[in-house]
């Protein structure tokens, strides 16, 4: 118990520093790259003097550190701010040039926008991971159990094939084949659960190669461990050894991989997949926000994403230590 408390306290404080750093980097980068959001908020033909005045009123002309300080203060109170671009009904919008009528209160709250989009992304991510596991566990285990034999080669071929397919291409091909030609599934937008299936396949194809390799290597390594032979000598069946001991031990590197690599891949993959499928999740929201220079949304998503990464890594490490007590993080 004491270990758990110490572990979480230490990791949460480290995590906060990481999130703060990420937020600062994103915040600064957004304000350095070309593309002044005020021109997008108010529209291209707005007189320059009005642009400057509105930018000043919104605090966009203060030094970056001042802006960042104000932003952190806001976030600390749980306020992620309001979108520059999106109206109260959540609709994406070009700029309104009505400088006199521009009122930040008429724009959607970032927390609500993310709150609306997040369940869709979680559903897609969950189904994607499920599909990836359905493919990767049997192939990876078979490959690990028969190292050097045909299942091992099959695992290698499948993962090599999947890893070399760009997800944009896979997405377009799957929509074309499964939706446009075969008419099996809908693909674009979201009007029901079935709209998640093809995007989830694309996510799964991206995730499964790493899983297959990790499972097969880890299972094969455990089969070579002395405890496996000892168990067999003591009369335990091969399947008992595999399901009770090998799988449990093989899960630790897989969990680590999940925390360190897959969540990052998943996040990146979701952005691209949601955009192609016009799937109304956080990825789509973010990509549109980048195109529209909607700083508050980009910042909030960056903070949430880095927070999620930190939290998942923390949980993964904690779970690893409960599986294998020798581990210390």
């Amino acid at each position, binding site marked *: 118990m004491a270990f758990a408390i110490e572990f979480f306290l230490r990791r949460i404080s480290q995590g906060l520093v990481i999130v703060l750093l990420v937020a600062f980097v994103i915040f600064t980068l957004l304000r350095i790259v070309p593309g002044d959001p005020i021109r997008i908020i108010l529209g291209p033909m707005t007189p*320059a003097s009005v642009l400057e005045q509105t930018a000043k009123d919104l605090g966009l002309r203060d030094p970056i550190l001042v802006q960042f300080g104000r932003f952190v203060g806001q976030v600390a109170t749980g306020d992620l701010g309001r979108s520059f671009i999106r109206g109260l009904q959540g609709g994406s919008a070009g700029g309104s040039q*009505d400088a006199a009528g521009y009122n930040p209160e008429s724009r959607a709250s970032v927390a609500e926008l993310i709150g609306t989009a997040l369940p869709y992304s979680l559903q897609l991510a969950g189904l994607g991971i499920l599909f990836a596991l359905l493919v990767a566990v049997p192939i990876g285990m078979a490959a690990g159990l028969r190292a050097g034999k045909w299942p091992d080669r099959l695992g290698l071929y499948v993962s090599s094939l999947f890893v070399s397919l760009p997800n944009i291409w896979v997405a377009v091909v799957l929509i074309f084949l499964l939706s446009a030609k075969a008419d099996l599934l809908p693909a674009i937008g979201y*009007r029901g659960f079935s709209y998640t299936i093809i995007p989830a396949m694309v996510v799964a194809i991206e995730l499964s190669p790493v899983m297959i390799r990790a499972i097969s290597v880890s299972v094969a390594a455990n089969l070579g461990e002395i405890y496996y032979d000892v168990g067999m000598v003591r009369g335990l069946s091969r399947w008992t050894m595999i399901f009770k001991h090998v799988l449990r031990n093989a899960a630790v590197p897989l969990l680590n991989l999940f925390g360190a690599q897959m969540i990052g891949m998943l996040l990146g993959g979701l952005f691209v997949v949601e955009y192609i499928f016009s799937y109304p999740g956080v990825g789509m929201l973010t990509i549109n926000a980048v195109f529209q220079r909607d700083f508050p949304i980009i910042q909030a998503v960056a903070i949430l994403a880095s927070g999620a990464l930190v939290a998942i890594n923390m949980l993964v490490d904690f779970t690893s230590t409960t599986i294998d007590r020798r581990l210390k993080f």
Partner: protein
Amino acid sequence: MISTRRTFLAGATALGAGSLLIGPGRIGRALAQDASTLIFAAAGTVTSSWDPSSHTIAPQITAEALVFGRLTKCLMKPENPGEILPDLALEWKLIDKYTLEYKLRQGVKFHDGKDFKAEDVKATYEYASQPSRPASAWYPGQVEVEIVDDYTVRLKTEKYGYPALNFWYVSSFLPILSAKDVADPNVLKQRPNGTGAFRYQETKGDQIVFKANADYYDGKPQIETLLWNYVPDANTRVLGLLNGQYHLTERLEPEQFESLKKEANVTTDKGLSSENKYLHFRCNKPPFDDVRVRLAAVHAIDRDQILAIVGEAGQASNCHISPVKFGYTDVPDYPKFDPEMCQKLLAEAGFPNGQGLPELEYITSVGFYPKTREYGELVTAMLQEQGFNVKLTTLEPAAWEEQIYRRADGQGPGHIIDVGWITGSPEPDLVLRPNYYSKFALINGVNDPEIDASLDKERNAESTEERLKVLQEETLPLLAAKVPSLSLYSSVFLRAMSNKLQGAYFYPNGPIDLSKATLG
């Protein structure tokens, strides 16, 4: 492996849960809609204000065209760009130089039930033409509206010093609002309320829902529901059309258009637009403040090669306005590719073979117009060949948009800017004044008294015939001689739709008339 009762139950539960989640009948062509719902995959979307006078954003103008009526309508067909048809006005005539009279249609209702009358025209025109309104650029100037009776109005321009004839074409582009809404700007912003074929129902995230207007003066549209889906990715729009989820999409790339032509269930449509693509020179800083350097640059550019790259998305035109605009003419001395002339002009300007010219930045976009990056590289190479030291900067749309217009100090970034200009009326001044009149010259910053005088002369003409003559014989040739910008070509809009969709009319600036459309 033997299956036990427990594993069987677990499996059955998982299957059951799975099918519950997916639900019966969801898979498959659940997406197919009934024949009265049209789904439009739009490349752009609207602003957060529904007040038409608050913006000049093309996709919102397209959305407003569904909802609002106008006094007149112009189909802007290239064979007869000046044709004017009745909409909310049935007759119009010029009373004197400063007075234009419209007789209004009776029995028309706004979507909120209010009767359409002369007071609405007065409220709209007097409100939206105020210089403080962001879209007042569409108006030739401020205007007074006299109510003769409930169904007769007179536009009066004498107080503001320009001829009323300037409204002749523009009135087909200016949406008519309800006087009740104009009195309450907050209501005006929240929802559009017009007299058009479709009424606005709601916005759900990136989807806008429009419903057929049962009281539309020309009959209730057959399409009951129109779903406007904002789909920013062009490939997604095409795939959605192929799998039957969308019925109509716009702004296709030439390659997509080519491949869609072969699809059995899809009809393609291309139409000359009211947009020209330009290379604007920043005329208020060296070296393009010298007309000889501008002319040298345009003589270095072979527009035929650009058109070869743009393919079906462009049409050759030798004029600073599109062929669907009033006044278009094939300007006889429009600058042509002529390397010798280029060198001669460079030498005259004091830069023989380009020596002594500063480094020039050419700013263009990628992902907004077709092929800008590709022909940007070509133009850069052509200019370099003649000795111009040009650097191409390619930006994604948001960053590019920020670089287009001149800043508070009058200067804009870079030296050459690639941009298009699209407006929804045959009125040429919607292009010419914002771009070439020194008071505006929003992008190129040209300040030339001769151009100003010529633009004033055509604006002040007292008859359409006289105006046409001034435009074709003086103003447009003068722009070709002074080239504050080079018009590269006229854009062709590429669209595709389900072949069930019949009877849609596409305006050259983007709006679509679906009042008579059916979804077979």
